[in-house]
């Protein structure tokens, strides 16, 4: 039945929007628009690069080249889109305009009026739309707009809103490195395993894709979304003028602009004078200033390779994307890291727009048959007893996807089950991003561990998460839809990822502590319960001396639990075990013999590990 419906549906689409769809690369520094003509994508305009700069002049709005360098022009707005004030704290000082806002959004102050990053971005998109309409001779019916692979839901949503505001039908938001891979795959017939190294003005993405016969499978993606050419400009300016951060805003803007000019000049020249400072900068100097930034890039590269379970040698090629990869300093570092000469034969400024044009053509009913398999950028999970995160869906899982897991109640007669949904790579709940909390009520009162709750995560093709919970004995259900990265800023995503690696050890210690505390609580409850039931039984197995020793050991364990040394808790647990051993043995002898004979590995490990 479904297939019968699909046939007319598809042919209608083909007829309806066969023509005039475009791909747009909405960049931090520059933007471009491209379309597919006779089967191959081309960028639009004699000078296709439109600087992402907007100047409001009374009723008029000037966009692009003419707005560059004009007093009060707005640049690098992409760094603000879909962000709250807190998220942009680190870049705020360096942006040459005033900002107001709250935790959810920011606005730019222009001539006393407030304008949102969405509106500014929409002006850029409008200008690109006009450009495309002039070139194609009619209204644009659909557009694919690219976003950094690491853009979160709020940022994607805001970008989509900007498209709508510009009067565009946004057919899809596409990851920038994926778009670049599509362009290479089709233009160069590239097949195999490729890394896309995308260093733009304000973002860095690294993706590994398998390209084969029209399928583009993202194997792993990573990045550092607060890192780009802008940061290198500032590093150069700071290198020349160490007190840069303390200077007035206008001065900073001027110095950073000169740093950028010097950086760009060093692409073709060995040395260049830094105007007004009587200093010459050479490539060796630039290399040194760039080193910490490149090291951050390469760190992300290493992690993505590991996630993809690949070695550098297994890559068929490395594709360079983004204006910042024009710099020889960047190219050298990439070539050295991957031990191969990176591909840059398609213009790194244009390649993203070209790939987006291809995807627009596909969605608009064009001839190309291309399938993109994208992934979840950050793991999704729930909080467990003790604040530990249980991951249900791991990062780099192909979307759409889903996962189901069953959890047992922790306490006797527990009637509610709190579900805390989290995103991030860290082991503990408070180090991950909280997405949602909800409670499943009406769990039938039972002994701890008897009532079971099944939790299901579903992620759709747009990366949106839906969580459902079901109590298994009664079938009671609760569900909630969450946007997985709602309100999660780029920097937060990136910080969470970086921290999860840098602090893996701290995390492990904390996880051990939480695990031991839970274990201690369980043992205390079990011991108390056994003491009580023994007192009530007709035949007492508990020796009064053992009782005294047991009480003392329980008290010692409670003291240890109040501290934060998991080894001490573990030792106290073992002491309690030891103290109550005669009693436990007596109980065990009486109990059914068949069980508990063999030693499980986990038990064995817990005995020898300390």
């Amino acid at each position, binding site marked *: 039945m479904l297939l019968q419906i699909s046939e007319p549906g598809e042919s209608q689409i083909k007829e309806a929007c066969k023509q005039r769809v475009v791909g747009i690369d909405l960049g931090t520094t520059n933007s471009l628009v491209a379309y597919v003509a006779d089967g191959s994508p081309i960028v639009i305009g004699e000078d296709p690069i439109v600087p992402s700069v907007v100047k409001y002049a009374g009723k008029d709005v000037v966009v692009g080249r003419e707005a560059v360098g004009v007093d009060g022009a707005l640049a690098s707005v992409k760094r603000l889109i879909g962000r709250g004030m807190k998220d942009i704290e680190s870049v705020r000082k360096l942006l040459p305009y005033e900002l107001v806002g709250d935790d959810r959004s920011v606005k730019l102050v222009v001539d006393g009026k407030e304008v949102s990053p969405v509106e500014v971005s929409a002006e850029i998109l409008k200008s690109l739309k006009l450009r495309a309409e002039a070139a194609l001779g009619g209204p644009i019916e659909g557009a694919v707009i690219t976003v950094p692979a690491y853009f979160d839901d709020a940022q994607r949503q805001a970008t989509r809103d900007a498209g709508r505001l510009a009067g565009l039908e946004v057919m899809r938001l596409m990851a920038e490195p994926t778009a670049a891979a599509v362009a290479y795959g089709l233009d160069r017939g590239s097949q195999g395993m490729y890394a896309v190294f995308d260093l733009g003005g304000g973002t860095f993405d690294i993706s590994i894709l398998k390209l084969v016969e029209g399928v583009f499978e993202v194997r792993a993606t990573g990045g550092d979304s607060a890192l780009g050419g802008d940061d290198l400009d500032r590093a150069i300016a700071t290198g020349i003028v160490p007190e840069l951060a303390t200077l007035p805003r206008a001065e900073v803007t001027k110095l950073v602009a000169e740093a950028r000019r010097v950086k760009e000049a060093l692409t073709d020249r060995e040395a260049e004078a830094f105007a007004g400072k009587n200093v010459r900068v050479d490539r060796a100097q630039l290399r040194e200033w760039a080193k910490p930034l490149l090291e951050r890039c390469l760190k992300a590269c290493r992690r993505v390779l590991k996630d993809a379970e690949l070695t550098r040698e297994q890559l068929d090629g490395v594709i360079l994307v983004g204006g910042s990869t024009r710099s020889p300093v960047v190219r050298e570092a990439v070539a050295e890291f991957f031990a191969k000469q990176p591909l840059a034969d398609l213009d790194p400024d244009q390649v993203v727009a070209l790939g987006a044009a291809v995807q627009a053509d596909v969605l608009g009913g064009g001839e190309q048959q291309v399938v*993109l398999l994208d992934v979840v950028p950050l793991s999704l999970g729930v909080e467990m007893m003790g604040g530990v995160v249980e991951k249900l869906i791991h990062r780099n899982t192909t979307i*759409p996807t889903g996962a189901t897991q069953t959890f047992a109640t922790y306490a006797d007669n527990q009637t509610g089950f709190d579900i805390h949904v989290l995103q991030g790579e860290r082991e503990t709940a408070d180090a991950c991003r909280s997405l949602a909390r909800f409670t499943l009520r009406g769990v039938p009162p039972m002994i701890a561990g008897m009532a079971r709750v099944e939790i299901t995560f579903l992620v759709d093709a747009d990366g949106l998460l839906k969580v459902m919970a079901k109590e298994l004995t009664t079938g009671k259900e609760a569900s909630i839809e969450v946007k997985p990265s709602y309100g999660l800023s780029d920097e937060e995503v990136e910080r969470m990822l970086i921290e999860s690696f840098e602090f893996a050890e701290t995390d*492990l210690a904390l996880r051990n502590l939480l695990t031991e505390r839970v274990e201690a609580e369980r043992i205390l409850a079990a011991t108390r319960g056994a003491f009580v039931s023994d007192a009530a039984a007709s035949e007492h197995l508990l020796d009064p001396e053992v009782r005294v020793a047991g009480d003392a050991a329980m008290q010692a364990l409670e003291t240890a639990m109040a501290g934060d040394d998991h080894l001490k808790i573990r030792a106290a647990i073992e002491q309690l075990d030891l103290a109550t051993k005669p009693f436990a043995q007596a109980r065990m002898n009486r109990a059914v013999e068949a069980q508990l004979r063999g030693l499980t*590995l986990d038990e*064995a490990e817990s005995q020898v590990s300390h």
Partner: protein
Amino acid sequence: MAVESPSSSNFFELLGLPARFDLDPSLIERAFFDRSKELHPDRFASAPAAERVAALSRSRALNDAYQTLKKPVGRAQYLLERAGVTIGDNERLDPAQIMEVLEAREELAEARAAGNTAKIEQLQTAMRTKRAAALSDLEKAFAADDTAGVKATLISLRYIDRYLEECDAALDEE
């Protein structure tokens, strides 16, 4: 960890593959790519809502199927589950193996405490060799229709993989 959703059909059928262990990885990948071309939600971008929902759930099941079957351990576990054999959280190794694992762990812990990267790498390589041997055991057990052997090997692999994760974590500290 992909989990079969209650409604999903047999993962092998979904990929159009025979339900067996010895499958060429490139064959599985090709099957996945071919199916993705038919089922990916992009292909139904402008279809009626009901059809989009159906496409989404089929595509999700397809991705889960691939995730589960693409690697030998997942594939073996899935085949075992379908044969009605489950592996619990506290499965027992035989005593000789327990001793072996415990010793290897102690060695790793010592090397880690001493910050001896070369030693950790050596232990990692040794364990990888063991893993390769276990995978070949798995294949033999499937060929011989030896369900108990498959289960025992999967349990060993669980400990081997956990050990290799610890090696990774130890090397990351450097």
